[in-house]
């Protein structure tokens, strides 16, 4: 048995092991689940150094030399301060000093929250703009003709834009929390909002199903075509 076939065999066994949970929880599944968890955390420890700390911290801290022995990149020693900061998190299991763990968390949360303002701005600007489509037609034609003149708002466009506008607004109204929904208009709008949401969710469901099934089909392709047909039976 050559190596690639062995690799496929192992992979197929593991896949079947995980699939077995569909029938019921069993020891075979439990075995593969624990292998999976073990490998995953082992791998997390590997890439912690190889992909995060080594290039992002250690090498920058120590700098580098060029081939001729001169310094190519200066060592940046203040990075060393990050180690004690990170280590502070380990006080979390200590009853007395656990508050220190809030300092690294505070830094992470601070860096995150500081970015929210610019993120909001760049993200929502174009979306707001796109929600302001014209709702008054500038021609009497209803449907798009064969050649569309740029800038023309056909009646069907205007209607579509109007529905889209009402959708955005009624959904937004549905998410108003500090208003009493006893008001009839507000109640009607937010009920409509909920119905429109369901259309949105239905459409998401429909398109997601495609992906999930594709992944299953891909697994079946792997097991039956790549492993059984091409690997074991050597058929093209």
């Amino acid at each position, binding site marked *: 048995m050559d190596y690639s076939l062995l690799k496929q065999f192992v992979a197929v066994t593991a896949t079947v092991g995980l699939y077995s949970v569909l029938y019921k929880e069993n020891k075979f599944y439990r075995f593969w689940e624990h292998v999976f*968890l073990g490998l995953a*955390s082992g791998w997390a420890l590997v890439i912690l150094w190889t992909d995060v700390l080594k290039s992002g911290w250690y090498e920058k801290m120590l700098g580098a030399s060029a081939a001729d022995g001169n310094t190519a990149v200066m060592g940046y020693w203040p990075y060393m301060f990050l180690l004690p900061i990170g280590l502070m998190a380990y006080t979390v299991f200590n009853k007395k000093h656990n508050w220190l763990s809030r300092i690294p968390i505070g830094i992470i949360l601070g860096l995150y929250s500081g970015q929210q303002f610019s993120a909001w701005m760049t993200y929502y600007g174009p979306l707001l703009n796109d929600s302001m489509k014209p709702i008054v037609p500038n021609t009497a034609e209803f449907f798009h003709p064969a050649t569309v003149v740029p800038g023309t708002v056909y009646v069907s466009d205007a209607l579509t834009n109007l529905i889209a506008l009402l959708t955005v607004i009624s959904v937004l109204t549905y998410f108003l929390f500090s208003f009493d929904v006893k008001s009839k208009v507000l109640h009607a709008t937010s009920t409509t909002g909920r119905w429109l949401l369901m259309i949105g969710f239905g459409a998401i469901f429909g398109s997601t199903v495609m992906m999930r099934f594709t992944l299953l089909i891909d697994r079946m392709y792997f097991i039956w075509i790549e492993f059984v047909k091409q690997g074991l039976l050597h058929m093209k």
Partner: protein
Amino acid sequence: MGNQYLDTGWFMMVLTLVMVSLILYNISRAHGGKDLYIRRISGLNAIDEAVGRATEMGRPVLMVPGLSASVNAKTMQAINIFAYVTRVAARFANPIMVCCADATVLTVCQEVIRDVYQQEGLADQYDVDSVRFISDRQFAFAGGVAGLILREKAAATFFLGEFYAESLILAETANSVGAIQVASSTELTQTPFFIAACDYVLIGDEYYAASAFLTRQPVLVGSLIGQDWCKLAMIAMILCGTTFNSIQQRGTTTTEHKEGKWVDLPKERLVLAKDTFFSRLLKADPEKNIKLDPPREKLPPDQLPSGGPAGGDK
């Protein structure tokens, strides 16, 4: 000075600041002791019921704060809700389990959950292993949590936070052991799956409103009302923009805005969406070749960088 904002436009910056001040103003208003109204959110009333049922059955309550790569606003919100759930569970002396997918989230959860037990005077009931790290790899995490749900027969499950494809693995597994489920994903694409498989789902913004509803902290209530004002402001802006655009797009134009300047068009044409006033306000057109006048001086030779991340545009 204004030039520096050309890539984003000054208007969105002002708008962001307006939103921020609306929220801050309402927080200070709530601090002033005003009693402010928030409407009911149906999924949240189910929390007490779910924990109560878990107690009756003598089975654990399982909570998952999502799959975020490190603590952020989404996980903090989940943890705030879990603090409430834990409080209820602690009073009933019901076992809990929190499954984390990230070490920083684990740290915060440990801290918060222990605090809750201490505040309730039940510090001896707190089990360090009830808050555990499963894996930071998406599907290993899903497999591990699914295994836990099946073996521990969780009676109530709370999936709140950032969930991706694993949402349905968790929700269907919990459904198969008959758990009562409250769920919300900040990823809208997962919401329909939670709707299909869970008992109560917090949709979209309801998730961010939950902690205000549960705890009634003045800061949170005030902030929630501020958020409502922001949403009203956005509705007003959309309506205003639509009206403006509708009027403007009925006309024609002979000039257009290109790379920060007005240029004449060869022929008069209809106003396009990109020509409208609001479009230029919201999507500022970056001006390419800005000249600096007078030019900058050069750095002295001993301070010259030899390349590398010294940045700035171009």
